[in-house]
């Protein structure tokens, strides 16, 4: 069977061949374009470092690497190890602050 020489057109970045950009994606784009996403990331990073969350996660990774042998760990492994604990141990105040910022952004972006 001859493989088709008519390739389907390369999908554009903006146009999803499956569906319209979701609300989530629109918001993401707006966040990035306005520079707010960067600010939020910095804020979250700073808060998580202050409260010791980052050190906790690093300790978990270190313990895992020690157990598994430091040359046998992959980034994937570490992400899977850290994600559940990481998500659960964000302090409420940090989470509330970030959510407040995001919500006011949403309001100002009229979504």
């Amino acid at each position, binding site marked *: 069977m001859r493989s088709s020489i008519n390739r389907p057109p390369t999908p554009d970045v903006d146009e999803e061949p499956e569906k319209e950009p979701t609300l989530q994606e629109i918001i993401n784009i707006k966040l990035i374009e306005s520079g707010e996403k960067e600010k*939020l*990331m910095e804020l979250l990073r700073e808060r998580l470092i202050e409260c010791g969350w980052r050190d906790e*996660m690093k300790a978990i*990774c270190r313990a895992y690497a020690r157990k598994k042998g430091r040359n046998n760990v992959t980034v994937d492994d570490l992400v899977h190890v850290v994600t559940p604990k990481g998500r659960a141990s964000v302090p409420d105040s940090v989470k509330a602050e970030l959510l407040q910022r995001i919500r006011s952004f949403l309001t100002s972006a009229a979504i």
Partner: protein
Amino acid sequence: MSASNDGNSSPRSQLASRCFEDLLDSIIVDVASECHRIARLGLDRNLEEEEEELRLSVQARVADPSSSTEANSKNVVDIFGLTHPAIADEIFECMNCGRPIVAGRFAPHLEKCMGKGRKARKVTRSSTIARTRHSRGSPVSVYAPYSNATNSNRAPNGTTGGSGEEYADYPYGVP
């Protein structure tokens, strides 16, 4: 969750939560990637130190065969700085026959003394049978004054071995 804007605040809250989770995931990946780098490049000195310690301890064990204080401890110093002779030389009394025994020779002595050896079996045959019947075959009963092997309790401190099961009732032993 207190989203106090519109009456129906859940879609917006949901959106906000998802944005937050997105941010958090990115940061998690950052942390994971940094830890991965540290682990792989061996920058974490603690990890290294542990591995070194393991290696050293294995080496020490292999290179110096007399380093174990249990086996073959001729010239070896234990953690308190004491040395021990190869055969334990403390002398005490056998609680079965009452003879002074060198501790390092206690096990072979017990074999003969308690009936596992050929000679002992010949001499004390009847009492051995009675003993095993009561003690369910465990030779440990010799120095357990409250066990049910009352016949075998021939300790020289004056306990009478002939009086029934009463010793079994006192869990803390009878003088």
